[in-house]
């Protein structure tokens, strides 16, 4: 098991290096930080543009391989991911936002998996009954409704509740507003901020887990081995829970593991609506501002998340399914 993990990890490090280097070249080719300066009024003198671009190691007049080598050695030797066109360190900006994203998405991810899988199982066992039809209809509704619209409705509802109550129960922007140092009030304040975006994020990813888990369980619950379990003396519901559920969780586990990266960088719209400085918004900003180093740094982080997810998927699947041997 340990040997397997080490070997996989080594494979992934190589894979990540190739992918990130490739991203660097592509980003350097397509992004043009010089245009940031050329669109200003008045246009700054070329020498000063070159100076700031060179300082950030993104000057298109320097040879690409030289820039790449400097960028790489900085990362390897100093864990320095470079500067944005505004001369801000990219590493600090990304790590700060990873923290914000982590606070935002952790609870929502866990909730959406638990709620989605639970509803999926509930509806699969009650296939074509009214519970299945109602929840299925609801899931389809949430699947087609744009996230921005859903988020705005949640915000409107929260404001309506706040008004009705006469005090601010839900905050609709940011993640924190408490500035003291006591844990209790800090947590309360954090939760007041967190509830609304969590509801939005939970709903949008729970519906996919609901619908896929329902399908997976329906596939396995008519399997011969469930009938065998019943023939042994397990009542139907127990036979499904014990024998069909575990096999049907295997594809869901893979889905969850691979969604880690998109959870971090994909909450752009929710972050925008609730004014949270997360990774998703930052990613969009770096691209808009021709921030080569910033975009590559995020791509590297997303790549690392994906591969961590893949590794996690391998381990979880091996644990769920003895047919998979890690050797």
């Amino acid at each position: 098991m340990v040997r397997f993990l080490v070997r996989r990890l080594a494979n992934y490090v190589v894979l990540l290096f190739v992918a990130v280097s490739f991203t660097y070249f592509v980003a350097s080719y397509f992004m043009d930080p010089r245009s940031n300066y050329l669109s200003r009024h008045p246009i700054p003198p070329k020498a000063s543009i070159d100076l700031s671009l060179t300082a950030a190691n993104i000057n298109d007049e320097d040879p690409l391989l030289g820039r790449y080598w400097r960028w790489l050695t900085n990362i390897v030797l100093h864990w320095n991911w470079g500067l944005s066109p505004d001369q801000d360190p990219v590493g600090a900006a990304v790590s700060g936002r990873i923290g914000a994203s982590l606070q935002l998405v952790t609870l929502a991810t866990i909730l959406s998996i638990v709620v989605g899988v639970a509803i999926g199982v509930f509806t699969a066992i009650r296939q074509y009954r009214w519970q299945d039809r109602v929840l299925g209809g609801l899931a389809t509704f949430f699947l087609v409704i744009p996230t921005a619209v859903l988020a705005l409705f949640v915000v409107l509802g929260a404001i309506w509740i706040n008004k009705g109550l006469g005090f601010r129960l839900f905050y609709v922007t940011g993640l924190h507003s408490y500035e003291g140092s006591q844990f209790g009030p800090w947590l309360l304040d954090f939760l007041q901020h967190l509830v609304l975006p969590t509801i939005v994020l939970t709903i949008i990813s729970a519906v996919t887990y609901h619908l896929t888990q329902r399908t997976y369980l329906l596939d396995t619950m008519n399997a011969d081995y469930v009938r065998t379990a019943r023939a042994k003396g397990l009542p139907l519901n127990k036979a499904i829970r014990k024998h069909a559920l575990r096999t049907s969780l295997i594809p869901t586990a893979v889905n969850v593991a691979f969604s880690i990266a998109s959870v971090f960088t994909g909450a752009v719209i929710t972050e925008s609506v609730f004014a949270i400085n997360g990774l998703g918004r930052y990613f969009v900003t770096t691209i808009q501002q021709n921030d080569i180093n910033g975009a590559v740094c995020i791509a590297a982080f997303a790549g690392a998340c994906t591969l961590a997810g893949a590794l996690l998927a391998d381990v979880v699947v091996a644990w769920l399914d003895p047919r998979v041997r890690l050797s």
Partner: protein
Amino acid sequence: MTDQILTTTGDHPDGTPPEGLVLPAGAGRLTPATEPVLSVRDLHVSFASEAGTVRAVRGVSFDLLPARTLGIVGESGSGKSVTSLSIMGLLDQNARVEGSIRLKGTELLGKTELEMSKHRGNDMAMVFQDPLSALTPVFSIGDQLAEALDLHQDLTRKQVRDRSVELLDLVGIPNPAERLKSFPHQFSGGMRQRVMIAIAIANDPDVIIADEPTTALDVTIQAQVLEVLKKAQRETGAAVVMITHDLGVVAGVADDVLVMYAGRPVEQAPVDELFARPAMPYTMGLLGAVPRPDRGENRRLVPIQGNPPSLVDLPVGCPFADRCPLVEDRCRTAEPPLAPVPGRVDQRAACVRVDEIVAEGLTFEDVYPVGEAAESGLDGVPREEREVVLEVTDLKKHFPLTKGGFLRRRAGTVKAVDGVTFDVRAGETLALVGESGSGKTTTLLEIMRLQAPQGGTVAVLGKNLAELARPERAALRRELQIVFQDPQSSMDPRLPVYDILAEPLKVHGWSRARTNERISELMRLVGLNPDHVDRFPTQFSGGQRQRIAIARALAVGPRLVVLDEPVSALDVSIQAGVINLLEDLQAQLGVAFLFVAHDLSVIRHISSRTAVMYLGQVVEQGDTEAVFTAPRHPYTQALLSAVPLPDPQLERQRRRVVLQGDLPSPAQEIVGCRFASRCPVRAALPADRRTLCDTVQPGLATGAVPGTDHGAACHYPLTSSAAEDVRVPSRA
């Protein structure tokens, strides 16, 4: 170490002669020896479907006494499985079950799921058809056995473990204590079915229902599993309901038989009575339609015309009337009840003409018109003078086994086909027979590829495939055609039959007018109405679809047709018609068949030559009669002795060579004889003579029997007197 000869006679479990101890329902017998454990009365099951109400079971009644075996026989759709599932209460929720099912006096119908679950696995248990999917893949064997025990007994962990080891040992799983930790995928199909039997008998049930328990297994494994089932019955004293379509299996294990047709029991009798003197024309037809492994090829099979009726739209009167040669007008007015057959003890049949049948002693030869076989133009020509259509010499096909993710390494080789040599001559049928994994299908596909093989040579009509130019290869395609096992999946469901048959003709550049003419001719040739060419494959029955597949293969007039298990997906009564058709086509057209099958009865019937394959090699080859009557290789002998005979008396007399263990993995490196690990002959040899088997691979030695090309790949081939002992007995 586990290999030994197990010779058994077909004695009944308790050693008593099989007298009709199972009470036919309602037959006013005198005091029975024991109370029935299971008693089914007037069971009706129907399902709602989009086409209407499917009346799957219509009035089944029987009593089952302790330690007895009731065989329920019928073709697909006859309602036998539905009957068993309704006893267990395992039917879908949309099934309507009426009547009465009493287990030890307790009425089961009307019980809730929770109440039923107290009975299931406890006083009644079930063994299902497909052992590969019947065990949960993610739990260990030990966990699955323990679950069955814990559900109905209050045992400590140690007791559960001890009992599990005991059960696995009972069903013949080597190293039971270690195997408890194994998962189902680490077992072969036969081993998994043993585990299923262990689970079924875990709580000493009173009734074991076995639903086609050996249908998915190879014949040598089937013999093993049936032995285990008998042993399990002996240990638990349970009554067994054996559901099967295989009349040979029934003859071997059942005390009494219930024949079902279109959801109704049509005949019920003690096993000897039923096979010796069937009283219902359907039963007669079934017995006449099944090919016999113990008889030569000259007897023509008797197919039952037509198809079973739809269960949604049953005709008034006897459901068998449309296929029955004895049909009269009164058959179509009311459905005959299952009534006692006059003058016979315990035999009941549902036929209005049963009095006549008994009085005149009619047998199926009298009832069913035996057709005349077509004359073949090649009949007088000796084999040596016929043209060689296909010549395969030392054919090899190895598959690499690889390991690793990005950098694949070779971890081993699967020698799927490893040095196969045979030839097929004009107008003859060569049967390739062997268990799954023996390399039959790979051999066929290598030939059909029409490319230079990995090793050895293949020559079609004298042309070596390795030396063919492209146009020659395309032309050769016309001479070589294939028919697959499942006609359903080998034809595009969106093409009408016309297009299916026209496709090969179009490829070979036939004109439209000639194509039209040819298609009508083909439809008539395979016994279908030429007006039906605009229908789609789904509008035909299974047997008719296989006829279309045969017509497609014959369309361009091939010299050799390769048939891969062409009748194994068909019911017995339909199968007989297709076999007859193949025989007639061969006689009329002089086409040669390369016939792959696992069913030895079919092979004995249809083929003139047989090659027995084991682990990628031909271990015995020769004229079918010689191979079947005087097998020289111990594997052939075991294979033949494992085939169940549809004759209860012969079944009881015969001695069986039950092979121990499973086919070794094809990836395993085997130095000596490939059969050595399971060979009963080698096991009986002194150690010094065994060395030869373990170190030297035997070649296919022909010429041992003077004047024939009968050969076996064995260092110590059986002499005919040794073969005499266990070979298929014959009543002739």
